């Protein structure tokens, strides 16, 4: 998908770094969330 959207490697890497930074920001907002993992019950 990334290669189709951004065939130029430098632009693709830059976009990936920007997306990663965005995801870090989103996770920072949700950092206090507590989650149960359903599959670890036993």
């Amino acid at each position, binding site marked *: 998908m990334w290669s189709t959207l951004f065939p130029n490697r430098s632009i693709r*890497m830059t976009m990936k770094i920007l997306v990663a930074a965005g*995801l870090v920001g989103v*996770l920072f907002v949700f950092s206090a969330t507590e*989650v149960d*993992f*359903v*599959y*670890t019950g*036993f």
Partner: protein
Amino acid sequence: MFIDLLSWEFLLFSAFAIILVSSSIGLVRTVGFLGANIAFIFALLGPIGLASTLFFSGLGWGLTRVHLTAFRWAAILSATLLILVFIYMLDYEFLGLFLPDAARLSFLQTVGLSFLLFRILHVMIDARSDVIDRIDPAVYPNYLLAFTTFMMGPIQRYQDFRDQWADRTQAIEMTYEAHLDAGLRILWGLVKVYVIGTFIFRFALQPNTDVLALSLGEFWLQLVAFYFFLYMNFSGYCDVVIGIGSLMGIRPPENFNNPYFAQNIADFWLRQHRSLTLWLTDYVFNPVYKKALSSGSFASLPLAAGIIAAMLTMLVSGLWHGTTIGFLIFGLVHGTWLAIYRIWDHVLVARLGKKRLRKVRASWPGRVVGMAITLHAAAFAFLFFQLDTPSVVALLKGLL
């Protein structure tokens, strides 16, 4: 079970493990990673949980040595004993029928023992049939206890782990972009678990829900929400550990492939918790199916042999997923879905022929109908996965 993948402790620990495994060699790497794995299990389960995990791993190693002796009875006995100890340690609900409360291990808090059991059994069986030529004592403990796959899989094969550990195969390409992709995968997995999953969870079925008191619309919404919550929760977790494993150099296998796009229930199990499905296919379905076909009664009835093998496989799957009656029913429901699918497929092939049936299934209405039926069938089975025992009993009493 609570573990905070977003905590500084877990992220720093993962970074430490990545640096340790990818930059050290020999004994330092082996012992260092084993120490890290044991520290992880101790932090997760405490001293009793760690002791029980180490006991079960040690027992698995000992019984594997017994399993590899020349005697067939010793092989059967060792595998049976391991499974019996597993059932006892996990304190399966049905043990109450045979054992007094004082003899049960209801106090033991374990996690990941079911995954550990399947890893040990896989090595036992494959080593006996020479698929695994040698069990390396320096690799085996880390294979069993690796923190990336300890809690919830994926169920990695020993050969895959060993070859990556020994640098015979590469986890990912040695490029900046491949490493950036692994990092992105960790972040996306965390977003699936902590953002999307927690949002969907608000609408999802709860363990103590009185299902019979719900309207059909509420029931549908809660069931489908639970299906997608479980997907986000489990596949997000797998994304995180696959990303960490990729950076470390020991990448766990893929476990999900858009299960909501599955067009039949057999396809669903190849897309959902795929490493478990492949394990069950290799060590339960195929042997039972072959045995049934080679026996006199089912030699000319491959459909019946397939249904029996599928039913038994799903029963094992259900009991492996959990210790209560709900999980037994979860397995039976999936076994029933697989039986219906196989019979329906048989009827359609007889009526339409293979070529026409393939054409109908490839058409967009065929694909949409297939996906919708499969999604709802899978979501319905998860009803028994999520409900606790009193709620399952109340539901069954209300229905009967």
